[in-house]
């Protein structure tokens, strides 16, 4: 144990995004009482500035990759990918939230502070190389999300969402923690690289059955966070109840971060026992796809439907995880990126449509949207087609690549079943398109105001990103592939 420790500048540099975000979040919080009601619009702008700065920091941090703070963090391509992703999700959500918050008369600095803090947690998750950081990262990200889910505290649905998320989240985290304790006991370490080394060394490797059990306990925690079956139960209720921008955020950011850490833990630390967990994830992936897709068919509430769809998409990513190959990891990374954009985009449109108090959430109420606001409808259609997996969208290429990875890993049946599942998905995504384009406008559509600037920005950025990822995926995929290769080495 060293007696003295003074972090080097490089280490701070590698941790810069988190530092920036924390400082900005604190600043937002502190500024709020100072500036008064009238200048509240400064707060989101400040958050945006912070996020952009963090984005920049995350990118430049990659120029000097490596571990930091006693191997607590590992800045590599993989972590950079997810840090950038969650920060971009944050940017989009901030854009998408402005209108919502003013509409609900809840333009407090806390919202942005919490959002930024949550992103800090996700950044930590993305770069964590130590189970302790994983735990803390998860907690930071989650606790902030719990509060955000119940942000409008006078709203019954928000409360319910928050309490459900909170109780079940903590419950699942306890399992995760228990698993961490065991793996610590078995290997004497909580460092992922170290655990992998020990498990790989035959002489000192502990009973693999017990390692399997601890991996299982941790799986409970991770699967819960990514909403994989059979731990997906919370997701629909929570997404439905939370404020729409928060649902957008939760289904994209924390999910991506959770997958990041899930991937890192299972692809590095538990890689040596992959023959134990791969079949489980196989089953889980299939169940997740089935539950998500089939349950979504009957939904009337668009938020809830998107929640189920987000479960289904988690299933596709799980397919990529099942491959436990670098190509599978790359596929998962790519998928999460494109999913983040299309999903945030879709939720952003819902934010726009729901109006004050989220009164218009039924799918049928979107009738005739294409007649009144063709651009909005077209953009939502792009998101839906991407979710559905129509070529030239990110969603398609992600899915394509996931299943390619699965085939390369000889998962023929999973591929076939997964693809059939994606055909089932057409059922419910098409319904929204049908309602928007093929029904006559109803009261809800007629009273719709034009799209606000913030939401517009968020939606357009998401749409462009969805299309770019679909048409020119090579750069992102290249990066993902190289990072995945490096990480799994």
């Amino acid at each position: 144990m060293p007696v003295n420790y003074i972090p080097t500048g490089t280490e701070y540099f590698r941790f810069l995004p988190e530092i920036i975000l924390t400082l900005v979040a604190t600043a937002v919080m502190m500024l709020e009482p100072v500036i008064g009601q009238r200048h509240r619009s400064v707060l989101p702008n400040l958050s945006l500035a912070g996020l952009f700065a963090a984005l920049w920091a995350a990118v430049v941090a990659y120029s000097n990759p490596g571990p930091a703070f006693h191997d607590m963090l590992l800045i590599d391509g993989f972590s950079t990918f997810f840090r950038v992703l969650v920060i971009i999700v944050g940017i989009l959500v901030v854009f998408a939230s402005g209108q919502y918050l003013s509409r609900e008369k809840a333009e407090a600095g806390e919202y942005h502070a919490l959002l930024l803090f949550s992103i800090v947690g996700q950044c930590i998750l993305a770069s964590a190389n130590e189970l302790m950081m994983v735990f803390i990262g998860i907690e930071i990200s989650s606790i902030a999300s719990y509060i955000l889910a119940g942000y409008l505290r006078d709203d019954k649905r928000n409360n319910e969402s928050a309490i459900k998320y909170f109780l079940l989240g903590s419950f699942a985290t306890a399992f995760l923690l228990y698993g961490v304790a065991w793996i610590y006991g078995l290997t004497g370490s909580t460092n992922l690289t170290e655990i992998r080394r020990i498990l790989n060394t035959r002489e000192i490797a502990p009973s693999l059955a017990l390692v399997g059990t601890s991996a299982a306990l941790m799986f409970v925690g991770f699967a819960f966070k990514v909403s994989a079956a059979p731990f997906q139960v919370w997701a629909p209720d929570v997404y439905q109840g939370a404020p729409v921008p928060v649902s957008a955020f939760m289904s994209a950011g924390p999910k991506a971060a959770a997958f990041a850490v899930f991937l890192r833990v299972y692809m590095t630390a538990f890689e040596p026992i992959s023959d134990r967990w791969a079949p489980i994830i196989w089953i889980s992936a299939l169940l997740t796809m089935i539950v998500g897709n089939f349950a979504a068919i009957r939904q009337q509430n668009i938020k809830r439907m998107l929640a189920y769809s987000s479960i289904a998409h988690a299933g596709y990513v799980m397919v990529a995880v099942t491959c436990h190959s670098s190509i599978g990891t790359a596929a998962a990374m790519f998928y999460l990126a494109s999913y983040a954009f299309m999903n945030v985009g879709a939720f952003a449109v819902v934010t726009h449509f729901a109006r004050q108090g989220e009164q218009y959430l039924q799918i049928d109420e979107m009738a005739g949207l294409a007649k009144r606001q063709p651009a909005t409808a077209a953009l939502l259609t792009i998101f839906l087609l991407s979710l559905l997996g129509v070529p030239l969208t990110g969603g398609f290429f992600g899915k394509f690549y996931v299943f390619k990875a699965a085939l390369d890993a000889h998962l023929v049946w999973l591929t076939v079943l997964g693809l059939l599942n994606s055909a089932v998905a057409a059922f419910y995504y098409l319904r929204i398109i049908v309602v928007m384009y093929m029904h006559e406008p109803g009261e809800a559509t007629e009273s719709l105001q034009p799209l606000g600037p913030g939401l517009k920005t968020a939606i357009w950025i998401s749409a462009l990103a969805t299309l770019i990822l679909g048409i020119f995926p090579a750069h992102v995929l290249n990066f993902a592939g190289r990072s995945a290769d490096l990480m799994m080495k």
Partner: protein
Amino acid sequence: MPPIPAAVPLSWYLVLSAVLFSLGVAGFLFRKNIITVFMSIELMLNAVNLSFIAFSYHLKQVDGQIFSFFVMVVAAAEAAVGLGIILTVYKNRSTLEIDEINSMKN
């Protein structure tokens, strides 16, 4: 009845931890007051802490204890937030019955 050993085997601590963890799970499952349910989670965290400290003893490392320290900190923070959420729920619904909080389903 096996003879009582002179010193406590480490596994006893671990089994105790497991039992407490399971009881925490049971509390979550069977209790209907939200606060009690929350307390069950605390119980589970405590059980995990016991495991950490037992392993720390076994490994002759302080790291496990540090981990349990962080668990405590997190639990405290969680308690603050959780109780806040419970308060708002109660304000809105005037009930702490966990079974009553099911307006969103299917």
